């Protein structure tokens, strides 16, 4: 039980996927200029990341390992993730138009989020079990969402400021991301995982 709690603390704060492991930076920079869209993106990513880490675990455990095809990990995970995302989108589209309107355009974008593939590969590397894999994916997504939402609120405030010309837009966002990463260094050493 404590192990699972530690996995959550570790992925959300200590080894945050964006600010400490530098995965999933594209949506972090791209979808963070408005708070509303950042929330949509966070919801969609949490959904997909959890499902994808489950599916990739199953693929690895019951397909790749028995057939000794571990060298196909990367490519098969990409396939699984793309399939899961597409399937989710179709399912949501048919069953819940409201949810589709919220998550809609973000779902295909997530296919290319390297954090999703990163979680799948790290799960194998760290030898996580069934529940640990799911929790690792979920924690990664929560950490991603936390940072993305805070960052987008921060960017809205910065956009209102008097930023000097050469630093407007992405440049100041990069500097801000750097300072955020600095702040997250404070959590170093809290969980040894």
């Amino acid at each position, binding site marked *: 039980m404590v192990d699972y709690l530690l996995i959550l603390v570790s992925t959300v704060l200590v080894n945050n996927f964006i600010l400490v492991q530098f995965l999933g930076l594209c949506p972090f920079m791209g979808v963070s200029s408005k*708070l509303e869209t950042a929330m949509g993106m966070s919801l969609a990513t949490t959904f997909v990341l959890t499902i994808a880490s489950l599916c990739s675990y199953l693929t690895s455990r019951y397909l790749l390992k028995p057939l000794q095809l571990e060298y196909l990990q990367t490519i098969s995970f990409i396939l699984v993730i793309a399939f899961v995302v597409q399937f989710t989108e179709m399912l949501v589209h048919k069953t819940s138009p409201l949810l589709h309107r919220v998550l809609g355009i973000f779902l295909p974008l997530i296919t290319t989020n390297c954090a999703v593939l990163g979680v799948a590969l790290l799960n194998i590397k760290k030898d996580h079990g069934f529940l640990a894999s799911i929790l690792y994916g979920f924690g990664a997504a929560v950490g991603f969402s936390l940072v993305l*939402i*805070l*960052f987008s*609120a*921060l960017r*809205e*405030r*910065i956009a209102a*400021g*008097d*930023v*000097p010309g050469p*630093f407007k837009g992405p440049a*100041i966002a990069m*500097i*801000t991301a750097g*300072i*955020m990463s*600095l*702040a*997250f*260094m*404070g*959590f*170093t*050493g*809290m969980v040894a995982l």
Partner: protein
Amino acid sequence: MVLPQITSPHISGANRTGQLMLWVILATLPALALQTYWYGYGNLINVILAALMAITMEAAIIRIRRRPVVFYLADNSALLTAVLLGLALPPFSPWWLLLIAVLSAIVFAKHLYGGLGNNPFNPAMVGYALVLIAFPVEMTRWATAGIDLSMEDSLRITFMGFSDVNGIDSWTHATPLDLVKHKGAQPIDALIASPEMGQGLKAAYWVNFAYAIGGSMLLCLRIISWHAPVAMLTSLALISSVFYWVDPQKYPSSLMHLLTGATMMGAFFIITDPVSSATSRLGKLFYGAAIGILVYVIRTFGSYPEAMAFSVLLMNLAAPFIDYYTRPRSYGHQSSWWR
């Protein structure tokens, strides 16, 4: 009789920002005096050097941004940042450490965001955290409490390093929080009874007391509001007493958490920064309480002995989000919080 129509504001004051900043600088003086008394001339040298550097850099960057230099310098904000940095950095820090800290504080954390009023992060804390991560060896050398070094020797350490000073074996010592962090399985009682801890604790209590006095003065003058400091100190006291109650030999008491390290300085001088903290009253309460909890969690479970800079930066980045959800009710509208 002529009654001319004049639009508001009808009473206009001088540049109040400059005055406020000056008051805050004055309020740090008791603490500066006590830090000089306990830890030697180190912090005094830090403050003076940092102030010179900060004013030079501020003037240069305002010039580059083609703004009126004298007008912006008169708000004294660069001076205040320098004073806080000089007090927070270890005494007898090498001059280049100060330079890097002040550079990242004034140029990166403040002026790249558009100067005073636009910076989302507290400049002094950005400078502090940056040098803490980049130069951990220099940043974890705090002077022995009750040290007696001449001004000449102090300047020599600052500019040429410790190896050039003759006749002194050592001038650094683990701070109380360092000792607690590295105590291992030793019970707290035995640690507090040890002579090295006793002297350090006494100095830390005095210095924190001085910050509390200065901070109370600011509260009385209504320069800072009570919300964030009270929330922070309360949450820190509560969480530390819970842990203390569970295992008093493993976790230090709340008194020790409240009166060592940068607790009082942070509570009254750092988290009350009107620019980078949350704005609304409710927001300030959340902001302060979260900082208190973060300080405790990082001090106790993290790998750094002191956590004020990190906690403040972490909550700075959450402040716009807090503001978004704690907007005060505007007249004639429903409260957005309870909806």
